[in-house]
């Protein structure tokens, strides 16, 4: 197992054993700000080397992927799982959006195996964060006299939420400053990246284990969904990645993004836009099951799937 994943396991085990270990709340916040900025900067720096025309068609396909996933997830949750419209829509939105940390673990997986990938992939992370959430809110609000969507606050929450600002802001700064401008920032933003990720995963392990009790009430269907849906999304991601001509490594990262579920941006947006949904359900699914599944089992599995479909 990777050192990084072991930190998650340590946090999870410590919490289950009822240790009093806690990370200070502001350290959690500081780490998440740091990780978002660092990923944005890295992606922006690489984007500076790219011609926009090459990336544009790929970007469109990636956004389409972010729209399709929640549209697939919603009927599964609503019809098959018999969750009410609000909860089904909210959970679908979480799975349409992405997890930054899962992405970071995916990058680490590739680096450890020295597999190449298109270095501008963080752009896709930024592009995928938002559409899924918007589709989720639409699904909750449309179809039924369940209240109209208040687009103003929602778009504000989505585009100006902290994770979007940091990711996109980092991307822009990285793009404007380029590799030379960022060189003096390397020790801070890139050298420390993996260590900071470890601390964050330790905290995620603590949080996930603290939420684990909710599994009993959320039911077997949701648990199953939280494992099957990522695999399904990873297949979609693999198909799209292959179709738009990404390398095997890039395809694996896109599959990982597709498979990941948001537990930072989506919960914040849904709490305001779809208050009727029970946040316990979506967080249990996304954080307690899908997140560890992805970092422990999923990524190697998607690697295998990419091998089958991408065929390189």
């Amino acid at each position, binding site marked *: 197992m990777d050192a990084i994943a072991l930190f998650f396991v340590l946090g999870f085990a410590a919490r289950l054993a009822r240790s009093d270990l806690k990370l200070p709340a502001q350290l959690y916040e500081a780490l998440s700000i740091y990780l978002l900025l660092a990923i944005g900067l890295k992606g922006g720096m690489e984007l500076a080397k790219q011609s926009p025309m090459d990336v544009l068609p790929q970007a469109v396909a990636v956004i389409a992927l972010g729209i399709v996933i929640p549209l697939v997830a919603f009927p599964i949750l609503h019809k098959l799982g018999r969750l009410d419209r609000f909860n089904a829509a909210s959970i679908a939105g979480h799975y349409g959006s992405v997890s930054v940390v899962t992405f970071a673990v995916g990058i680490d997986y590739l680096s450890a195996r020295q597999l190449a990938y298109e270095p501008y992939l963080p752009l896709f992370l930024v592009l995928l964060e938002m559409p899924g959430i918007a589709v989720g809110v639409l699904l909750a609000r449309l179809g039924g006299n369940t209240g109209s969507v208040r687009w103003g606050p929602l778009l504000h929450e989505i585009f100006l939420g902290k994770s979007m600002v940091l990711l996109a802001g980092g991307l822009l700064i990285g793009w404007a400053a380029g590799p030379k401008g960022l060189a003096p920032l390397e020790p801070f933003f890139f050298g420390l990246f993996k260590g900071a990720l470890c601390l964050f995963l330790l*905290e995620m392990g603590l949080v996930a284990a603290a939420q684990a009790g909710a599994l009993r009430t959320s039911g077997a269907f949701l648990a199953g969904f939280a494992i099957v849906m990522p695999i399904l999304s990873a297949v979609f991601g693999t198909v799209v990645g292959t179709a738009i001509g990404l390398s095997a490594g890039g395809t694996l990262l896109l599959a990982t993004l597709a498979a990941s579920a948001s537990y*930072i941006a989506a919960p914040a947006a849904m*709490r305001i836009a779809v*208050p009727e949904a029970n946040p316990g359900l979506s*967080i249990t699914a996304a954080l307690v099951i899908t997140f560890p599944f992805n970092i422990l089992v999923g990524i190697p599995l998607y690697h295998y799937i990419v091998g089958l479909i991408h065929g390189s």
Partner: protein
Amino acid sequence: MPNTHPCKLVVLITEKALEEKLADDVMHLGAHGYTVADVRGRGSHGNRAGTWDADRSIRMEVLCDANTAVTITTHVEARYFRHYAMVAFVADVGVLRPEKFAG
């Protein structure tokens, strides 16, 4: 001999996600100020330990006159009680400079 004047203290304990909305609400409903602290706790929505974004809570305190207190509590009752973790209570206190908090 006390130098204070009767006033209401409305206290709202709820999810951090509501902080900005509540702040706007109480100012629009007639309060002239508010004070917010970060807290953690437990209630009917389970343990909100405050260790990450989704389970952080705040405690907002509003000094105001009796009418505004009723307006605020009625508003939050109608608007937030159903879907959010929230507790509200009101206390009688004595303030200095009562004109700061009235009408």
